[in-house]
């Protein structure tokens, strides 16, 4: 399963990178002259391989260019979330004391916000349609889960002999964190990072679907589903193809994450099942509920 997911993602990334040189139509150009007089979108096959939308735009091109939007936002937003989450979690777990209290309560507060509602508010205030703002908003909400997991890990790692040895040899917090603890966090970061991409992509699709994400004419899967909605019964391909792409991409990243978790840290599986399951559910549900996080690993 994980291999299947990986193959899909590799293909997707390659096609997305090659989009500008592939022999496909301009995704944002409306070929109105090819549409019939009543303006009905063209069905798949024939002139357009995957059909056209009511603006005469090529659905295939838009799906390929839409993958660039999805992957870019997925990778960058989640990358940012990881950097912030790991930093906050590691510092809190290592330094403890009032520093930990402040950081972890901040994390709790952030988690208490209904993600979608708050994203809408922020995006409406700052700037609608800017890709950077969308990236920032997604990162803003999804670092919290990483921070909690990392803190739990650091709490436990900190008590291990090799870290104590580092301390005994005179290593400061910076040295110990970077050289002794961080390497042990890498598997979790990779696993969570992969699954987080799926969450980021689905969030981005939802934001675009409700009209506050990526703006016209930029191709985006979520927006394509929204645009095609009123034609759903007449031209089902307008929502099926982009919807399928969101589904497959999110599924693929989740499968890869699952596979990586098994491969990188089989022993941790039982420990993290609750945490990662919860994070995924929280991301997908977007309801601000992350049931699995109750089982957050405390040092024993």
């Amino acid at each position, binding site marked *: 399963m994980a291999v299947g997911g990986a193959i899909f993602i590799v293909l997707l990334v390659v096609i997305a990178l090659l989009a500008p040189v592939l022999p496909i139509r301009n995704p944002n150009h409306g070929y109105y002259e090819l549409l019939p007089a009543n303006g009905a979108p063209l069905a798949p096959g024939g002139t357009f391989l995957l059909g056209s939308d009511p603006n005469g735009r090529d659905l295939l091109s838009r799906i390929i260019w839409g993958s660039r939007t999805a992957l870019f936002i997925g990778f960058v937003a989640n990358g940012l979330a990881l950097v912030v989450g790991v930093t906050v979690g590691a510092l809190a777990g290592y330094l403890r004391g009032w520093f930990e209290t402040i950081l972890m309560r901040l994390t709790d507060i952030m988690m208490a916000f209904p993600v979608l509602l708050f994203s809408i508010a922020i995006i409406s205030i700052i700037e609608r349609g800017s890709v950077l703002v969308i990236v920032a908003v997604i990162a803003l909400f999804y670092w919290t889960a990483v921070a909690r997991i990392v803190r739990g890990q650091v709490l436990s790692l900190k008590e291990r002999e090799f870290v104590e040895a580092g301390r005994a040899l005179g290593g400061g917090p910076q040295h110990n964190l970077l050289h002794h603890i961080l390497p042990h966090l890498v598997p979790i970061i990779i696993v969570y990072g992969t699954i987080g991409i799926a969450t980021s992509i689905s969030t981005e699709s939802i934001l675009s679907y409700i009209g506050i994400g990526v703006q016209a004419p930029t191709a985006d899967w979520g927006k394509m589903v929204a645009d095609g909605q*009123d*034609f759903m019964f007449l031209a089902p391909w307008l929502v099926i193809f982009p919807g399928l792409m969101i589904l497959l991409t999110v599924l693929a990243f989740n499968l890869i994450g699952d596979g990586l978790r098994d491969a990188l840290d089989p022993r941790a599986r039982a420990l993290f099942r609750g945490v990662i399951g919860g994070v995924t559910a929280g991301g997908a549900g977007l309801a601000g509920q992350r049931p699995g996080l109750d089982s957050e690993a405390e040092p024993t």
Partner: protein
Amino acid sequence: MKRVNTAAMAVLGVGTILLSACGNSVSNTEGQPVSGGTLLVSFKDDLKTLDPAIGYDTDSWSFERAIYNGLLDYKGFTTQLQPDIAASMPVIATDGKTYTFKLRKDVKFSNGRGVTADDFKYSWERMLDPKTAGPMTGGSFWGGIHGAQDFFNGAATQISGIKVVDPYTLEVDLDTPNQSFLNIVAMPFGFVIPKEAVASAGSDYAHKPVGTGAFVLDKWTPGQLIVVKKNPTYYGTKPYLDEIDAQIGVTPEVGYLRMQNNQMDIPQPDLTIPSAQYISLSANPSYKNRILKTPNVDIWYLAMNMNMKPFDNKLVRQAFEYVVNKANQIKILNGRGVVNNGIQAPPMPGYVPNYNPLGLDANGQNIQKAKDLLTQAGYSASHPFPAQDLVYAKASADSDRLAASIQQDFQQVGVTLNLKGLAFNAFLDITGKPNSTALSYNGWIQDFPDPSDFIDPILTCAAANVTANGGNVAFYCDKNADKLADQARGDTNSAERLKLYQQFQDFIVTQDFPWVPMYSTVETNVAAPRVHGYQLHPVWPFVATSIWVTGSAPSAAPVSASASP
């Protein structure tokens, strides 16, 4: 109807010049009318009001027309005026400034009291009273009544130009002759309401209307259901229907699905059929011959704010005239419209078919000319045209598609447009304020079938000289153009008058370029097969009095849980 959100109202008028398609079926008349039964219709949003002094949208007008009457009304489904509560057409003094209306003596409000001239004086003064805060307060169409300005300023407690001569005679004096005054009188703002109903309802009169009309309001559950029933004391020809039920919170898309499942008679009767539904219904053998079509008498245009950069430069405005591919827009509208390069709409008197003084091609473009003009205006690769926001009202997915096609057209001449789709109220707010919106995508639909309605509220200095809620979104103000409009408004020679309006159009389109005129639309509607006698009216958004129903009533689906409160 003022500024339009979606293609909204229906107009047939003097002749369907450009719209011979589809046999121009304007009615579903089959068999002998039968009385009785309930008609089920649906609306997306709850009604704003049933107070005729306030309502200025097609939803409200659909019901106001059923509940109230004015002095005059349109004869059948034409644009010709005839007496309604008036006993005969008014006597107009030779100076064109004094109108004398004789009233019928058999007209009763649904509370049982007879209607007199005092009721009209009360209703009109209330409608124009700044305290009522309706769209007509402060002037607009009615500001020309003698003494109205003093009334607005608070210098007078009543309007001296509205005189009750005797209980059944009303005299109205104007400051200057106005050839469209009778059309103004026939607007819902002129409907008569009883003083005692307003007094007892207080601020809630909008929900407790009392009128003289063919129907009376029976029940209004906010956000869910409106029921009107046949008025037993109605003085005119009684309607066939016993009752009309309007389900609220049903989108047109859902409404048309329900209609095809025999759960709805007429979905959203005041709006045209949405694109996707139109395409599938016109391919459906049970419905394709039932689709009613009629010109909407609307004009859709880009307004360029004359007071804002870069549109204060005439060369820029002129360049924009040549850019928009209007044929693409007609295609997005499923062919339900015509390219329009002027400011009047078919079949309004004064509309010129195939008007094309700028020599545009069949698509309404001349890209090379646009590029040359932009170069002349000082824009080039090294000094590119600044990106502009195109502000539009997001009524449906079609609004986005239309805006996207304009965005693509302007790319061809190196102009970047950012699409800013707004909710209708926000759109009206931002575009109606001076120096607030440079470029906007607007629609104007007739209030009444007279060409002055396409000029006075949207292209005169008086309409530009406002601080908010303006209709003149280009803030176009030219003394010479104003003079032409004044002259035309009072001209009693109708042929000469139309010539003046055509001169005005030439002036706008070839001299000053405040707008890029684009297209006019065709209204389409359809009713379930059990509905008969359904016709589209040239002025009113929905007329139920000609409708009768056969067979069993649709099994109404429950109102969706998401209906707005």
